[in-house]
């Protein structure tokens, strides 16, 4: 296994810049997840690492070797495609051993490696089947097996779970996490599903418009998002945002009232955005201190033990708060909501976090 280092990477399609100055370090044996909305450049970045997409500028090093001008196979990477991309005219064993065959690996070794991968992925009974005789989950495992047998320096996954149904997706996610531990593999994984990102990653890289917005440990991104985009992208339901102005008494939310919170480093009169996650908002009675907002209940979603209540503020902004158990809230009720001051996020006019 090896580390991957990407420096000042740029990629343009004609006049359109799809990757702008990407710097990324994937440590040896770590699981890095690239996440972001459609068209943010995450797949292009992965394909650039794979060598399927030539880059315009910058360097990619895998295991200390500059690979910019190397063909995909010479980069010692293995890619698992969203569509699995199994060769339809070959059985499972041939699919997995295909790359080795062309690399001139002795037949006995191919068989040994394919057998080993099949054992790990529980594909042994399926080795003589064709891809069309397999279910989606099995095809996915074959695609992963094809990657394993090549013993690559880096595994690249391009949205591998998005063609699976919900139950299978959770299973396979767990399988991939186990596999990562078992193989001590370096993995770069692209997804648009932030749950996959949170559960699998050692490091999450949030991308938007061809830039890296933030990279870090999953909980670091969750608790300390660097900017508005990351704050809104990570977490479900999304973080609530309230626009306001810094005043000597706290933050003035206009029609929604004044929040007495510790003053941020930003100067007085500065326009800021206040963010708070649903689980850090509590439906409160009249007693108790701390910052609070007066709201009207618009909708209650019950999921069981937890639920979400949609609250309309006087300004018309709708916020979502998490509730536990049966609160007896109904649409139209007036409710005061207390904000946990420890978990308030403040973002400046440029969208960056203010500590």
């Amino acid at each position, binding site marked *: 296994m090896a580390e991957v280092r990407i420096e000042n990477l740029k990629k343009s399609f004609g006049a359109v810049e799809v990757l702008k100055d990407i710097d990324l370090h994937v440590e040896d044996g770590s699981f890095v997840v690239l996440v972001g909305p459609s068209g943010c450049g995450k797949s292009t970045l992965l394909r650039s690492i*794979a*060598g*399927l997409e030539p880059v315009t500028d910058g360097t990619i090093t895998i295991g200390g070797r500059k690979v910019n001008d190397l*063909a*995909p*196979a*010479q980069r010692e*990477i*293995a*890619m698992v*495609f*969203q*569509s*699995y*991309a*199994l*060769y*339809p*005219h070959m059985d499972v064993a041939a699919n997995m051993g*295909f*790359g080795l065959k*062309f*690399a001139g690996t002795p037949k006995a070794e191919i068989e040994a490696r394919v057998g080993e991968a099949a054992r790990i992925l529980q594909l042994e009974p399926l080795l003589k089947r*064709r*891809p*069309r*005789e*397999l279910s*989606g989950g099995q*095809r996915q495992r074959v695609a992963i097996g*094809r990657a394993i047998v*090549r013993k690559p320096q880096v595994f690249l996954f391009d949205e591998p779970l998005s*063609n699976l149904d919900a139950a299978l997706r959770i299973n396979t996610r767990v399988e991939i996490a186990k596999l990562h531990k078992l193989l001590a593999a370096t993995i770069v994984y692209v997804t648009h599903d932030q749950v996959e990102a949170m559960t699998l990653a050692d490091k999450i890289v949030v991308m938007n418009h061809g830039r890296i917005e933030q990279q870090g440990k999953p909980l670091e991104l969750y608790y300390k998002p660097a900017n508005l985009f990351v704050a809104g992208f990570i977490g479900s339901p999304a973080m609530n945002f309230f626009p306001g102005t810094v005043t000597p008494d706290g933050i003035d939310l206009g029609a929604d009232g004044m929040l007495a919170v510790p003053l941020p480093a930003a100067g007085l009169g500065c326009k800021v955005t206040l963010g708070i996650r649903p689980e850090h908002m509590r439906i409160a009675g009249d007693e108790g201190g701390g910052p609070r907002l007066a709201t009207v209940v618009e909708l209650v979603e019950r999921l069981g033990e937890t639920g979400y209540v949609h609250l309309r503020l006087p300004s018309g902004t709708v916020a979502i708060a998490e509730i536990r158990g049966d609160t007896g809230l109904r649409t139209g009720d007036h409710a005061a909501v207390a904000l946990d001051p420890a978990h308030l996020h403040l973002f400046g006019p440029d969208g960056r976090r203010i500590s």
Partner: protein
Amino acid sequence: MRKPLSAFMVHAILGLYTLLALFPIVLVVMNSFKAKRAIFNTPLRPPLPSNFDPIGYARVFDDSSLAFYYLNSITVTVGTIFFTLLFGAMAAWALTEYKFRWNTLLALFLSIGIMVPIRLGSVAIIQLVAELNLINTLTALILVYTAQNLPLAIFILSEFIAQIPKDLREAARCDGLSEYNIFFHIILPLIRPAMATVAVFTMIPVWNDLWFPLLLAPAGGKQTITLGVQQFLGQYITDWNAVLAALSTAIVPVLLLYVIFSRQLIRGLTSGAVK
């Protein structure tokens, strides 16, 4: 749910067409087994023991040059199919997979060949073949037929290749295959049904053609069977037994080739590749 009546109508029409199409062939095969007198007196009757006469076949098989004509026809047809498929698939792969200057223009240029009949260029072709010293060779025929059939082959194969998911080619690149290996080990097996279609399209006109054998290889033992049969057609006497027997036997090789290729026309080979 289809109404049984309309299904019956469809079958009736198809059956009628089949009868119509098979009639001349049946007539030829039937009469090839009859004595000369019976061919003229009762052309529509099947051969009976009383008028059965395999004299035509005897003459065809006795004539040693005719065996060579069969071989020539088979060589030309198989050679044309081989080169048309090989070059057609390669060109189609290049035109669909690689983006280069003049890509679209080249594809358009090739598609012109579908519309312009090659026979318009016969004079130029004869001059070219003569200058290459290829008159009365099978090479000349194979070259001309390959050129004639390439445009349509490229057109059909491009469509099929474009339908092969991009991920498959990229997976193969990640697996370390060279572009040639991707073509031969991934693309070719996946477009087999399309190649069979092209082979059938190519094969029948080539087998039946009289024009180019007459112009390019009319002598020197390089005649094809369509041309070879002409030796039985004289200005004053025509050996109808031999003509009919030669025509009947000429059906066999092309029928065999058709059976071979139609087996490849199995659909759904690519299903299960992705998704």
